[in-house]
């Protein structure tokens, strides 16, 4: 019964929480800029509005364009069901689910970039080129983080290894490795969710075109699905990161759900702060940043060898 409640809680949170994180980020950015900013729930209103709209579809496109938002949402949702949001194991967990997790995210990305090329626009082609380039560097960084966690927990399953990260004693070599992995994971999070310093989510001007420009031709529900999928990706990776840095205890369910939710808010605030305080990197330096992320988690792995 308890697990059933935990599972339904996870599913509900996974489905409903993502736009809120975007709202918190936007509020933080507004606070830094001295503005009042949009309401906290603005992204929900936006999504609802988009769902009601009609769509305009370019005559250049094929079925791939219509399929991409759908594949994005489904694959991110399925990947999200493998990450424990709270102190309990995720709804789906099995040996090697971390491989499935990484490849489901890659599946969503593959279709999004194809849909961008489907429009035949050079703006969107440019966005697709950048997205696939950065993915080539963030993917090994993510796997190195996973390797650190597999090494520490001794099991190749996301739920087990994320929940056992809390048993690491602070001050031990293992905790140093976890800190390095967390830094690396934070960079991966920023890159995968198209945030500053990798991408600027506010604009699709050509200098900053990555994710926003890939969905330039999407409208109505199609655009809504893409926004929803990318915000869900943010939630999943933030929860992943929190499990690496926070000592959660599966026994104290009530307290740790609270810690987790507070942590998610904190991650959103930190992302908002980074966006307000940093400039976007020049595009040619982004691979360097991601290689640095690889090195961080790589060194973390060497520490615990």
């Amino acid at each position: 019964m308890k697990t059933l409640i935990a599972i339904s809680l996870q599913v509900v949170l996974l489905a409903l929480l993502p736009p809120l994180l975007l709202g918190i980020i936007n509020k933080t950015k507004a606070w830094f800029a001295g503005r009042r900013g949009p309401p906290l729930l603005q992204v929900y209103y936006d999504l609802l509005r988009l769902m009601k709209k009609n769509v305009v579809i370019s005559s250049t496109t094929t079925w791939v364009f219509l399929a991409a938002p759908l594949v994005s949402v489904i694959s991110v949702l399925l990947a999200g069901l493998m990450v424990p949001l709270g102190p309990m194991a995720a709804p789906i967990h099995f040996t090697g689910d971390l491989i499935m997790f990484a490849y489901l995210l890659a599946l969503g990305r593959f279709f999004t970039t194809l849909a961008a090329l489907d429009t035949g626009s050079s703006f969107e082609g440019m966005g697709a080129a950048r997205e696939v380039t950065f993915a080539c560097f963030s993917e090994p960084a993510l796997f190195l983080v996973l390797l650190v966690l597999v090494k520490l927990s001794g099991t190749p399953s996301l739920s087990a290894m994320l929940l056992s990260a809390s048993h690491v004693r602070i001050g031990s070599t293992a905790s140093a490795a976890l800190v390095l992995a967390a830094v690396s994971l934070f960079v991966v999070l920023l890159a995968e969710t198209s945030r500053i310093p990798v991408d600027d989510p506010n604009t699709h001007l050509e200098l900053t075109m990555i994710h926003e420009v890939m969905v330039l031709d999407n409208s109505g529900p199609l655009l809504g699905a893409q926004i929803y999928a990318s915000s869900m990706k943010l939630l999943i990776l933030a929860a992943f990161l929190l499990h690496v840095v926070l000592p959660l205890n599966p026994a104290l369910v009530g307290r740790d759900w609270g810690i987790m939710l507070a942590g998610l808010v904190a991650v959103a605030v930190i992302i908002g702060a980074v966006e307000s305080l940093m400039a976007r990197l020049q595009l040619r330096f982004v691979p360097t940043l991601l290689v640095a992320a690889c090195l961080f988690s790589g060194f973390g792995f060497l520490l615990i060898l």
Partner: protein
Amino acid sequence: MNWLALVILGVIAFVLSGPVGMLGRRSGNGWHWVSAAVAVAGGMCGLVAAFAVLLGSPSESLTIPAAAPAMTVNLRIGPLSAFFLIPIFAIGSLSSIYGLGYWPQSRHPRNGRKLRLWYGLLIAGMALLTLCQNSIDFLVAWEMMALSTFFLILTEDQKSSARQAAWVYLVATHLGTLLLVALFAIFRVINGSFLLRPLVPDQVGLALQTVIFLLATVGFGLKAGIVPLHFWLPEAHANAPSHVSATLSGVTLKMGIFGILRVLTLLPARPPAWGIFLLGLGAVSAFLGVLWAIAQHDLKKLLAYHSVENIGIILMGLGLALVGQAEHHPIWIILGMAGCLLHVWNHGLFKSLLFLSAGSVIHGTGTRDIDQLGGLAKSMKITAAAFLLGALAICGLPPLNGFVSEFLIYLGLFHTMARLPILSLTAAILAMVGALAAACFTKAYGSVFLGTSRRVSHRAHESGPTLWIPMGLLAAGCVLIGIAPSLVLTPLIHATATWSGQPSPELASLVPVKTITILGVGLLAAFGAGWVGQRYFLRRDRTGITWGCGYIAPSSRMQYTASSLAQMLLRALGPLVRQRRCEPQISAVFAGTGQFETHADDPVLKDAVEPVWRRLRFMLAGGQGFQRGSIQNYIFYMLLTVLVLLAFTLPLAMLWNWLL
């Protein structure tokens, strides 16, 4: 039931499929159909027999005695050979059907019959190779395969690119055969017979075994296309007709892997260093193969470089299994070997699918230059869907077959954490290879099939059923293994047990096959439901042109090209790619027309093989004096060689005894 006889029947059918097709008129299609039917019938015989052996029928042997011991033929079918026979016969049959539409006799009166003759011999040679139990037979089958490949690359011998590619291939394959002759000579001396029997541990030292291992890696590696021995491969596969390329990439390369596996079963010592060497070699091949693929503009050369990548992945699995044997870790053996073998099948399926789809594109448009194609998904719906499915599978994305075999290898690498955690770092390389492959196929599919049509695509037309039926069957295979990996567990366990010589642990308990099935079906069901729901839910306002920031007359020339798509990635990883750039020189204020070109050459071919080759030619030029072209001279040389060899035999034998 005598399964071995059935396989031999299949081999004979493939040998005969060529000559049968010669009975008809030069420009008539009738006998071409008969020839394909003979090939397919042979393929069916072979498949039935191979599946029977793989699913548990006992192994069978056959010896055809002869007066001279070297002429005796020893054949044997076991689970490992049956495992390799399945892609040979399956893809051999499907490509024969494909050839009916792709290379019909009526349209190719000049080379259609030649093509089918050598194609039948290629399939027969490969099938025999898996059965051979003595080194003479093995080398004969090997050369049968190697030489028919040469003639198949030369199908369009009027093209200089084909002649050049075939020539480089011939040099590479002969170099490989030379090493294999040395390898089998060593076996002959140690064993005292031509039979390929496992060596007895105390019979040979580790140093000699390592020599044998290295000879096998290089000799068979030249055929498999391991970096840096792949230099002949991209041009050769690009210049052969597409269904032949499908066979060469999907099946023939695997014969190199089969050779390495076969020789390893004969060596008693398997130190961990060998496994680590193969694992590293595999990681390097996978990474460089996919990186060089991204730089290509030629659709078939791009696919050919991906074969280098996938051979690398296969080799990673093999290396892991080998380390597992040295360290006595049955889990590493079973996961590494199952991943290696399953990837052999999977790569056969999706790479053939991709080459056949590429062939359909060439059939429909007449070019294989990616930068001239575009928007074909509208005029060639079936081909586009087939290519997309193959692309998803080769990138290792769920729920298709590529994911399952890569999953096995990843899982095996994660299991090395317990003893040799440094090995698991290659998992990160594999992850990068996956992302690079996705980048490459975004480029390939996006530029060829999506967007607006470029120069030549407007006259594209969909191909007929003889082309898309084989493609559909291959696609079905990709989906089937991806959704229901439990189907391939038994074959994998049997083949792995034959290779490692000990019963393997339960694969089903190590790999969550049921969960993969449930998630795969769930993914497809969710997509299907969403797709149907979307049709009702979406209200289309109107269709317009692509948003161009207010510009209302976009043309295909403004589209992002394949080259620009790859440019950023190539710049980031620049030093590893050999790209020639021809940029326009702008001199006046009102610049005239300029042309920008990039060419991606093979670094190994241009920087290592060609300079060495030129120097060799220069050094050996003096030897041309012996080439007089008169038969008497050559007979005299032979006699001289035999005499010299005889004179050497005695000291060599003494040297040998000392080495042992």
